[in-house]
């Protein structure tokens, strides 16, 4: 497929196994090196060992919410890496707080993988 995203390390934080499987498949097709985390705790541990190039992160997750993770990345880790949030429909309030804390973009469920791919490319081109 499209190999031009080669070597981009993408951290995918999604607790729903179905959505995670679908997105991982598609992103890998696009050439991203995808690292999957199933909850907020795993994400934090991963971030402490090494930072990815970009994060796709669900807002509602066990242990640490996506919002907390955005705050952690921007305030504690002082990193400006692109963050795309995934939100459930009807959680607009959360999306606003995520933006305020420095998230770059968001998508509402149900997610279209193709749309995510386009949005990712856009964010990566800004880096």
């Amino acid at each position, binding site marked *: 497929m499209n190999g031009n995203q080669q070597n981009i390390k993408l951290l995918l934080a999604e607790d729903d196994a*179905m959505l995670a499987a*679908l997105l991982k498949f*598609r992103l890998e097709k696009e050439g991203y090196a995808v690292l999957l985390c199933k909850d907020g705790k795993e994400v934090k541990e991963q971030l402490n060992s090494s930072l990815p190039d970009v994060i796709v992160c669900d807002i509602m997750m066990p242990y640490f919410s996506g919002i907390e993770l955005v705050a952690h990345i921007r305030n504690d880790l002082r990193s400006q890496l692109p963050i795309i949030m995934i939100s459930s429909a009807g959680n607009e309030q959360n999306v606003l707080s995520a933006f305020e804390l420095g998230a770059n973009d968001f998508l509402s*469920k149900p997610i279209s993988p193709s749309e995510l791919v386009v949005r990712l490319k856009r964010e990566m081109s800004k880096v």
Partner: protein
Amino acid sequence: MKPKELISWISRVETLLGEFSFEELDATEAKTLKNSFELFKEQLHDTISGNEISNSKLSNTLESNCYTTSRKPNSGAELIANVSHELRTPLNGIIGFTDLLKEDSLNEAQMVHVNAIQNASSSLMDIVNELLEYSKLSAKRELFDSVHFNFYRLLRDVVFLCETLIVQKNVKLEMLIDPSIPEVLVGDPTKLSQVLLNLLGNAIKFIEEGNIDFKIILEKKKEKELLLEFTIADNGIGIDESKLPFIFDSFRQADKETSNTYGGTGLGLSIVKQIVTQLGGAISVVSNLDMGTTFKFQLPFTVGDKTQLRKKNPNNNYLKDGVKLIKGTRILVFEDNSLNQRLIERRLKKWDCVSFITENAEYGINVLENQNIDLVLMDLRMPQMSGFEVSSLIRNHNSITVSQVPIIALTGDFTIKDKEISEMHGMNDYLLKPYSPDELLLKLLKNKKNGRTSENSKETEQPLDSKTILEVDKFSLDHIVEDCMGQLDLVEELISLYKENVLEFIGKIKYYLPERDFEAMGFALHKIKSGLAMMRTNSLYEIIREMSTCCKTTEDTGQLNVLFENFVSEYPNVERQIDAELEKLKIG
């Protein structure tokens, strides 16, 4: 709870009943209605004026299992709870009866009155339910339900759930029911399924391959009182003998390792024991390391009555729309019982459907050939030729308009085997007797659109409201296939994850709903949403949305229960549609 509010509703119902003219009704019908109201009023009067209700009176009027009656009400709250139960029985009668009245040819004025009685009774019912809920809470202990329920249906539901949990493992679950156990029992179906799901779930958890035998026998019978024995035996890892005595203790699993490997809080078995004991039963366990474990428990029940079964009550607004949608549908009914023939004819006529009713296969096929039939309702047990055989005849007919007509099986008793056989004979769906008009309508709507009529729509076809929850649109996996870029193995993986998610969800709600744990339910509801949206199984999604709202706002367990039951009964249909679509993809 305000007695004043209650009293004003009572007098309202009373006035309405007084105004109602019983002249044109069958005398016995009218008497039943009046009697149930008298009984209701008497009970209520006793409650409000605070009269002590003696135990003997309780047992005279209340059909309940031995557990509830043997307990002497010793607190105000408990008394209220018992009495509320009593109030519900006759009130149920009133509501059910007005249902029946509405099916008679009432004149307009009578109809207005019957509707008013029904509305007022329903409001009254809500209040009584509220009262019951409150007293349960203030008594700070669980009160057990005592309702008529379909025992076999409950077992089927439980086994259905468990079977789907073991799909991934090489485990065989076999159920054996003593056929002398009656179909309808009185007891607490929610608690029973909680116990069974816990024990079967445990067995499944601790076994990688082998057998789980689930056996139910009638241990003792004395008139209407039954003692049933449930046995759940597995040949899994077993439990060390020294640890067996503590197995029912709270927060204790066989050992630390177990909880690390298999998870869980260790509460399951202690809850199971509590429930069984409080229901008046006993539980025991026998186990050998590496040989397996056998749980055995006995529970008392009373023989139930089919006519007292709780009706499922889906939202009526949708059904009103539904009636509009099936107007003009041409339905062929195979039914041999003349009473049932009349009943169904009347019902279908009420919905402006065109019906043809017969017990004769030859005549039926003739109707199919000439009358442009949209749908067939098929009684499975008919004297000359079984419903299965007639279905095969239809499916093998050389005219495509005949051979593709949707067929719904009608049956009083439907086992997993019957399900397989009916599918083998090309039947699309089934409806268990006795069914409510609502249930029939739902089945008609569901099958009518999925069937032939969507393609060959006639000019008389009603425009469809796409927003209706009945989700009559054809289900398709196209969007998922597109998302997966045509990769079928991924589609399959997603579908199996979807099924796992749904079953996990059902298990959770079954557990949390009786516990009234709204936060845990809210989280489970949230989790399942994304998968349902992804698969675009909209009918299920709608139910989940409503349940979420309910959890966040009213916390009405009654409504949650109804919605959840709808979900559980709808899910197998959705799964069938998904599987059928997947099969098509694999072939095509």
